[in-house]
């Protein structure tokens, strides 16, 4: 990170830009389609007051958490088995790799068909996005564990299931948590993409619980409020910062010995 004194040039440039931007927009007198700083603040006050911002953010966050949980539920066991049982890892590796290359959002037409427009389709996309970092990292973690530990447990009479649960899983935990951080970032990115695509695709009024993405679409096409769009972008950025911070903290408190 940069030390505090070095923030000075940046603050000066940033402040000058914001002021110049505001002044430019005001002097152009064409405020409909150009966002401007004061307008963004006004939009913030308005959307917080009528509650639409908070509801949408909460809806998106709930979907991310549930999708993340589903991804972990399927991804961690698969990854651990792939890493620990070599033939399984070799056999499934290429398949996982090619499925991973499919951008999660590409599944949206199928997800809409299977799960409908009431938010579950977005959930599928999030779970799909969160699934792969868990698999990859759990597999890596399980692959790199100390075989001596496994052999020791075996020699002491532990069965395969017990070895997996008591030796492999704890050793793979730092890697899994590193994967969780990536998963969470992917999940947050793809929830917005999924909701945007759904919002653009599904124009009927009953589109279930509106998330940030759908809110952005209606702001774009119905209300034409550019300032609110910029506000939502800032909200998305701030939330992803907080998510990353929270995941880092979790990582540190759960695996203080891990250094990955």
């Amino acid at each position, binding site marked *: 990170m*940069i030390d505090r004194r*070095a*923030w*000075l*040039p*940046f603050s000066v*440039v*940033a402040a000058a830009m914001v002021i110049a931007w505001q002044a430019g927009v005001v002097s152009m007198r064409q405020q409909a*389609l150009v966002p401007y700083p004061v307008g963004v603040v006004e939009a913030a006050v308005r959307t917080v007051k009528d509650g639409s911002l908070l509801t949408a953010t909460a809806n998106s966050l709930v979907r991310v958490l549930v999708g993340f949980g589903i991804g972990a539920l399927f991804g961690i066991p698969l990854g651990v088995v792939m890493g620990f049982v070599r*033939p399984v890892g*070799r*056999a*499934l*590796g*290429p*398949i996982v*790799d*090619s499925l991973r*290359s*499919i*951008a*999660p*959002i*590409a*599944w*949206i*037409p*199928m997800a*809409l*068909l*299977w799960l409908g427009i009431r938010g579950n389709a977005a959930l599928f996309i999030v779970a799909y996005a969160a699934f792969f*970092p868990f698999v*990859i990292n759990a597999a*890596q973690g399980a692959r790199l564990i100390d075989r001596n530990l496994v052999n020791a447990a075996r020699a002491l009479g532990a069965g395969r299931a017990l070895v997996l649960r008591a030796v492999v899983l704890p050793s793979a935990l730092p890697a899994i948590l*590193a*994967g969780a951080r990536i998963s969470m970032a992917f999940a*947050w*990115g*793809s929830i*917005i*993409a999924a909701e*945007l*695509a759904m919002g*653009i*695709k599904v124009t009927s009024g009953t589109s279930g619980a509106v998330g940030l993405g759908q809110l*952005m*679409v209606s*702001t*774009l096409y119905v209300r034409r409020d*550019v300032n609110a*769009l*910029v506000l939502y*972008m*800032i909200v*998305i*950025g*701030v939330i*992803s*910062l907080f998510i*990353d911070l929270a995941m880092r903290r979790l990582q540190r408190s759960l695996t203080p010995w891990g250094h990955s």
Partner: protein
Amino acid sequence: MKDGTPTAAAPRIDVPVAITAARVLRLLEVPAALAVVVALWQVVSVAVGNKTLVPPPSLVLTAWVELVHGDLRDDVLASLAHLALGYALGAGTGLALAVLSARFAMLESIVDPFVELLRPISAIAWIPLAILMFGISAKVPVFLIFYAALFPIFVNTVAGVKQVDPQLVRAARALGASPRLILTHVVMPSALPFVLAGARLSLGVAWMAMVAAELTGSDAGLGWRLFWYQEFFAMNKVMAVILTIGVLGFLLDTLLRGLQARITRWSPDASRDDAR
């Protein structure tokens, strides 16, 4: 993040190998797993009994063959054109900013906070604003790819420059090298593995951004084609496009991974994936 262990690089003595049962079995692992996946897919499809809801593999394959001879080529070309332009602009800008930041501390103290502020705002979040700015057109995916590709390569290059052994820099300086010469002949080669890892990360996120942008704000490309076929409920074709996206993404990553391994074979950092 990704599995890039350079196992193939380990020195190996070539002995004439006997064809053993274990070896044959090992060769069969991937095809067997693939067969199981396809069989499962077929079973699910039959169980559901609705060819639109879950198109069976055979139908998807025929759709794919049909598409390869028809529309798909245009879509792939359109997508690759978006990707090439956006990626060249984004990765180029990211790299240039990082190199300039390495050279001019003043610039770094201005650029770096901007990057840290913008980076959390994912490319996806720009889609509505991009649609507003550019209309539904190829500019939306190009802009999105540009934005997505910019940050990973910037961050990695900066990290790569930071880890350069200061002794090397001091040695070069003591021998009379100019700052520019040090940058081009000491700092950049040493940072190259990081740059390439960043380039690969950039391509990955750019690919995702491309699909999302084409789905929502473009009138050509693979992502756009997904919704096009969905309008006709031609779900076997939708599946064929989805698989094409996966295969192409996989090929691109493999290509860059190969390039990375080739160019930086000498480096212990060659297999590292990101600087975080």
